[in-house]
């Protein structure tokens, strides 16, 4: 995130050359926002070293209609990927645009013939614009347990259309384990694990259960330290996914305003390094 608290939290990691890969939300500037010079310097440095990955947020790949906004997004993505070298590009499973709403949060869709066809068409457009491998990230949100159980196979069908990859977000897996009481190994095995090329780790938060069906609802808010459960999932996923190339620690901007939170972020980074060293000895 191109925010001052993120810069403060990560400066030491970059200075000590601990960071091997950088991921950029490449559609950050599509609405006119400009990244700070320090941010662009980092992007250029990692791009030149062939260590930059791209992560889109606003494509809405499973929207029922192909909108003018999506067309513009793809044109801007094409330009970005021509100007800066990326190892690969990913987007979120789900839809966030329909009818009068042009931007929302990614939500799950009815997984049927219509959504599969729309999704495959959009993945082909995405791959054509990026001109590099493209993939999808599993979604934390699900309307139901059935959504949870079907998402892995549906993503597999979508990415197979473009010989793409799965970005496995382990906090999103944790959300579904917690919210739907699904055993973690059973859930992971519903995904095409051989196609996992990247892992995401982050923290989140709990909110009140309106229905009383559960103690609380786990949310993918990216505003706290990585919980131990996600570190445990990381070790498990690294054993199950033989083709992981990138592991990314995520955090929302303006959520590390205190020095203690910034240190916590660096501690999480070091913990991930230890897990990787342990798994790949």
């Amino acid at each position: 995130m191109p925010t001052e608290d993120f810069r403060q939290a990560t400066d030491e990691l970059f200075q000590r050359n601990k960071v091997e890969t950088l991921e950029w939300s490449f559609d950050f500037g599509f609405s006119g926002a400009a990244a700070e010079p320090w941010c662009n310097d980092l992007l250029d440095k990692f791009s030149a070293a062939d260590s930059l990955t791209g992560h889109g947020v606003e494509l809405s790949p499973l929207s029922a209609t192909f909108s003018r906004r999506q067309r513009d997004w793809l044109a801007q993505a094409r330009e970005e990927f021509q100007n800066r070298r990326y190892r690969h590009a990913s987007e979120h499973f789900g839809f966030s645009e329909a009818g009068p709403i042009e931007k929302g949060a990614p939500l799950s869709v009815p997984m049927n013939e219509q959504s599969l066809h729309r999704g495959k068409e959009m993945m082909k457009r995405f791959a054509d614009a990026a001109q590099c491998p493209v993939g999808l990230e599993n979604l934390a949100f699900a309307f139901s347990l059935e959504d949870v159980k079907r998402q892995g196979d549906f993503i597999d069908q979508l990415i197979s259309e473009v010989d793409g990859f799965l970005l496995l977000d382990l906090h999103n897996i944790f959300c579904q384990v917690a919210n739907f009481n699904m055993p973690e190994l059973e859930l992971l095995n519903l995904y095409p694990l051989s196609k996992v090329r990247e892992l995401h780790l982050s923290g989140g938060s709990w909110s009140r259960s309106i229905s009383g069906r559960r103690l609380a609802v786990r949310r993918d808010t990216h505003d706290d330290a990585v919980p131990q459960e996600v570190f445990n999932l990381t070790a498990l996923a690294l054993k199950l996914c033989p083709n992981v190339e990138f592991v990314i620690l995520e955090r929302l901007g303006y959520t590390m305003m205190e020095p203690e939170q910034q240190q916590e972020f660096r501690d999480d980074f070091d913990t991930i390094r230890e897990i990787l060293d342990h798994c790949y000895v």
Partner: protein
Amino acid sequence: MSEDLKYSEFQNALLGLLASGLPEETIIATLKSDSRFDDYRDYVDQFDPDMVAVASELMGKWARRKVD
């Protein structure tokens, strides 16, 4: 109505309702009672009210309407 149009109409209605601020039970009941979405009734039947409430909150926070 074609299957593609049903899918599109369902998405429009779902996002619109989630952005409306209506209670989660009202959102679910509205989708189930709309005859245009008979094919999606089984899907909506499975909706977890907690998750609809989460989606509604997310849409309230992030939704941006198109400007023609």
